[in-house]
């Protein structure tokens, strides 16, 4: 699956975009976030305060119980400050 990071999540993760292949046990956004954190370093830092992280799966805002699967585009970002 393709992961995108925006704003300070991008800065903390140290990367804007990557392709990842988490283990099969990762089936939801919440599980993906746990796995992300387990990678340590910037990723652990980016997801340290999960309350500040929003997620979109295939360009749709979703909650953390939303399923994720191979081929999805998953974006992590802070609360939006558009307009």
């Amino acid at each position, binding site marked *: 699956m393709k992961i995108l990071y925006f704003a300070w999540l991008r800065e903390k993760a140290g990367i804007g975009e990557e392709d990842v292949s988490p283990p099969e046990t990762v089936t939801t956004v919440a599980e993906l976030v746990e796995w992300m954190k387990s990678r340590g370093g910037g990723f652990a830092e980016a997801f340290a305060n999960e309350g500040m992280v929003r997620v979109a799966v295939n360009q749709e805002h979703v909650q953390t119980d939303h399923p994720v699967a191979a081929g999805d585009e998953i*974006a992590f*970002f*802070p609360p939006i400050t558009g307009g």
Partner: protein
Amino acid sequence: MIRVQAEDFDVGQELEKLSDGNHGVGGVCSFVGLVRDIAGDKTIEAMTLEHYPQMTEPALAKIEAEAHDRWPLEETLIIHRYGRLEPGDRIVLVAAASAHREAAFEACHFLIDWLKTQAPFWKLEETPDGGQWVDARSSDGRAAERWLTDKPQDKPQDKPKGKPNAAE
């Protein structure tokens, strides 16, 4: 109508398009958002707007469609810029054209409130202390939430009382 662009836009020209050739439009309400030179007690030298290109246009289209569902509108417009902007620069233009002014006002207000919480943009402010990502404001969340419960006040079945006239 939706546009996401780095370039500035011509407000007069853009608003003109909303009623051009459509004599059913009685009013056009618009809002232009600009970069201020202060935020709280900090001086702002510039602001960089980052966005999520693959998602931005679909998100704006969804916000626009929602406005058309809620109010009797002739046309709407959202233009949102990205990239580096300086104080006084235009960031965003939203507008709604309708036969009636209440619908135009409410829809325009809705568009900007929802942009603030639904459109995938993030602002980085350049201050004398360095770059700082702008925190989402709880007031913007509340402003957006009120539209979840508010009913439009000018639906076709609930037109202004009294004889309509050609000016709204």
